[in-house]
């Protein structure tokens, strides 16, 4: 291990050395003491005063979810300044990496944020590229803001009472997650300490039908629900039985309550409830874990289960617990643990959906560290048990949907652009027939417009440059945790990848690389511009034999990154800087330290003199897409004479045509030059010869068929 670790560190040091001058990411995968998340004395392990200026002493963790109180010593004693919380005590919302950003948050007694400190994150984009200070700056926007305000990423919209925060360009997903974490963590604590008042919901009026449904029926109509957590979900090995398997339901409703408890116990339970109290039952039918826990860890609170209704959480104390001795409903499963819990709050209403939440610790296999995870299952009393049925509710859109709605027009424009490219390409035969060797505008007009849109709108505007890091991220998401929401929250990259996948199988990587990749387009546009401004005589191609060797380098880069990512995603992300995309589009050529700027500028500079050097020899994404291009469905046309004719091969900017006239579909960028030749009777030698022959013989020039030859002249049999 030590040799391995040394090697890894060496590699890391070398890469970081090579990236000298970049903001060194100091909380990236930082090692945090395990006690930080377990010890009652949280502030012994982290500088809580950093987020609560002026505080000099802190309480132990209290409450559920936990927080600590921050005090300042005064002459007469201590003054409560506010509260400090650790985000991962409260929520496990993951950021882009799939792991949460561990954040320490301070909030004063009036509910205004006093400090935010990122203790640990796993966000690749913040490792290199975007300096970590950007996240610090982002977090600083919370200072002084009130936890009860509607704070969102984006513009402020006073008419809707929404306070906007500036996002970090290129790290939208990270900051959206961070905003949820901030508001949720602050909100939870603010509600516990009375800063935020719970929402008051209208109560349900129940209908007692007098029926006594059996267990099966209760399950079917939804008045009994199930919450199962598997061992794998909490990072434990598979054991043949779940981690915990719970059944639960709402008891105040007389039909349900009487069916579950039986008349006697139901009446007795109801007689013990105060107005506004709600009883729920939970039984455990299987599992290796207890939902009550072995002891009351924090102030007599059951810390493994809670009830949530929208943003309100209800926890249970020992005084909220009653024994549940048996279930009356016929067909109920056997159970080994049971409880009746009382929700004592006017904020809870059985008329609206709520969730039973099971709070667990998840073990991280690699580090052995425990992280907080919660699992829930929704409950909504069936309408038949309430007067007037279920009330209408408007569920807020998930974050990704909000993004799609907000950017709808741009999304449509972007999709239209991609569809247009595909349509134009599918009409290639018509376009190349209209072009000639000397006038390729019918094809090029479309292609050049495509490039300009792709560079300006897609690249610099939307920052939607596909990258190998996305491939690596999916690969890992596939292995660990696939979350559509995460990918959906960047609509442009999401759509772009569908375009890429589809077109690679239809036509190969050429359509994306040759027509739509922002960096590739920029690179080739520079080459064309170079030619137009008179640098043509300095433009060159590598000799074919050398090209044929160097083209393999990109596959090495691709496999190298894939392999490294298996061991360290962080290192792979750093090495993925071989793509100059971040520097060119995401961050900007002049916003990065000089090695990056130099690298990207050198590649772009070289592109003026030789066509797409990066695409041909280095691009790992191009290599990754080239591989499946081997099996594209529809290739380009060739004729038998191509084997000896070199006309196309000489003109092919991608150097994709070999000495036998065969096209290497992994290298071809679908520029269409050879297809123009294919149909042109002044350029393609077999056609040209036939044209001359026919002209000499006074024969008509028939149209050129799809096979690239003149349609043969068939003598029509004359009537005798």
């Amino acid at each position: 291990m030590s040799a391995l670790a040394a090697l890894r560190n060496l590699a890391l040091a070398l890469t970081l050395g090579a990236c000298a001058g970049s903001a060194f990411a100091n909380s990236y995968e930082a090692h945090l003491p395990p006690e930080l998340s377990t010890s009652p004395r949280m502030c012994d392990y982290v500088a809580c005063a950093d987020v609560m200026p002026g505080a000099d002493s802190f309480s132990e963790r209290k409450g559920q979810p936990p927080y600590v109180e921050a005090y300042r010593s005064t002459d007469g004693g201590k003054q409560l300044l506010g509260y400090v919380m650790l985000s991962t005590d409260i929520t496990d919302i993951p950021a882009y990496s799939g792991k949460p950003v561990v954040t320490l948050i301070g909030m004063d007694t009036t509910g205004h944020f006093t400090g935010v400190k990122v203790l640990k994150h796993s966000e690749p984009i913040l490792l290199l590229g975007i300096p970590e200070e950007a996240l610090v700056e982002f977090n600083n926007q919370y200072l002084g803001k009130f936890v009860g305000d509607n704070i969102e990423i984006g513009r402020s919209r006073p008419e809707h009472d929404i306070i906007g925060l500036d996002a970090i360009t290129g790290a939208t997903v990270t900051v959206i997650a961070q905003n949820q974490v901030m508001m949720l963590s602050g909100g939870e604590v603010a509600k516990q300490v009375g800063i935020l008042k719970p929402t008051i919901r209208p109560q349900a009026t129940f209908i007692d039908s007098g029926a006594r449904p059996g267990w099966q029926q209760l399950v079917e109509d939804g008045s009994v629900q199930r919450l199962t957590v598997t061992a794998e979900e909490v990072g434990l090995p598979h054991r043949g039985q779940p981690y915990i398997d719970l059944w639960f339901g709402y008891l105040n409703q007389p039909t349900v309550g009487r069916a579950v408890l039986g008349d006697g116990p139901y009446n007795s339970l109801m007689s013990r409830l105060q107005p506004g109290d709600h009883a729920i039952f939970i039984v455990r039918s299987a599992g290796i874990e207890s939902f009550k826990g072995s002891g009351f860890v924090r102030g007599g609170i059951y810390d493994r289960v809670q009830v949530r209704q929208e943003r309100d959480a209800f926890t249970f104390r020992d005084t909220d617990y009653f024994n549940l001795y048996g279930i009356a409903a016929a067909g109920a499963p056997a159970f080994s643990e049971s409880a009746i819990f009382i929700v004592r709050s006017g904020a809870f209403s059985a008329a609206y959906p709520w969730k039973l939440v099971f709070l667990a610790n998840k073990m991280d296999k690699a580090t052995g560290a425990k992280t907080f995870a919660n699992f829930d299952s929704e409950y909504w009393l069936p309408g038949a048990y309430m007067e007037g049925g279920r009330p209408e509710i408007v569920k807020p859109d998930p974050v990704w949907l909000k993004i799609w709605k907000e950017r709808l027009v741009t999304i449509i424009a972007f999709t239209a652009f991609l569809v247009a490219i595909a349509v134009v390409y599918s009409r290639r035969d018509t376009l190349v027939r209209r072009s000639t060797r000397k006038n390729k505008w019918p094809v090029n007009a479309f292609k050049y417009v495509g490039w300009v849109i792709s560079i300006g709108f897609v690249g610099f505007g939307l920052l939607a440059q596909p990258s190998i890091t996305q491939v690596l991220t999916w690969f890992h998401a596939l292995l660990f945790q696939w979350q559509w929401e995460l990918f959906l929250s960047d609509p442009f990259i999401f759509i772009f990848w569908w375009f890429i996948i589809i077109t690679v199988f239809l036509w190969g990587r050429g359509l994306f690389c040759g027509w739509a990749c922002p960096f590739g387009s920029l690179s080739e546009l520079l080459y064309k511009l170079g030619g137009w401004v008179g640098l043509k005589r300095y433009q060159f191609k590598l000799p074919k034999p050398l090209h044929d060797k160097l083209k393999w380098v990109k596959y090495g880069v691709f496999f190298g990154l894939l392999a490294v990512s298996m061991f360290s995603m962080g290192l792979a992300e750093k090495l993925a800087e071989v793509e100059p995309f971040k520097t060119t589009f995401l961050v900007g050529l002049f916003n990065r330290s000089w090695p990056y700027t130099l690298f990207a500028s050198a590649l772009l500079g070289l592109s003026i003199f030789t066509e797409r050097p990066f695409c041909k020899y280095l691009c790992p994404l191009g290599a990754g897409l080239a591989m499946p291009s081997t099996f594209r469905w529809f290739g380009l046309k060739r004729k038998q004479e191509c084997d000896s004719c070199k006309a196309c091969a000489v003109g092919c900017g991608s150097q994709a045509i070999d000495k036998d006239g065969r096209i290497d579909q992994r290298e071809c960028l679908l520029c269409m030059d050879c297809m123009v030749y294919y149909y042109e009777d002044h350029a393609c030698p077999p056609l040209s010869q036939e044209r001359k022959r026919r002209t000499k013989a006074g024969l008509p020039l028939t149209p050129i068929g799809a096979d690239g030859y003149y349609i043969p002249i068939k003598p029509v049999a004359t009537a005798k």
Partner: protein
Amino acid sequence: MVDPKMPTEPMDPPYAGKTGLVGRLGAELWDHLWPWSRTGFQRQRAIQAAGLALGLAASVVWVLAAMGRLDAGAIIGWWFGWSVFEVVVRLGAKPYVKEGPWWGAAYRSATLMDMICYVSFKNLLIGAVLFLSLKSLGLVSV
């Protein structure tokens, strides 16, 4: 005389010309899953390849194991090692790949790169299916 219309020389698999949808699909499925062929079985070469690939797989598995990530890592390591082995076996036994539409029946001889692309793409799909089903069955944890 080479045919520039095909990226490599056309070449037919033994089941070429098989008619009937079921028969053809069956033959193709078998082809994807079984890299060996009776005619092309080259003992010497396969044994050498096996040694090489197993060595490679073992090192990857070993490294992953050393990092305490045996479960998923071991599987990936072995799958990778197997894929290397499969490329070599196929080049000896079934040295062809399909050309053009997947529903078509044109085949051509495979270069090393063609075979690497074929095997890695196919095994990525098979691996993803196997891995996800193992994961959902709870037989592998990450």
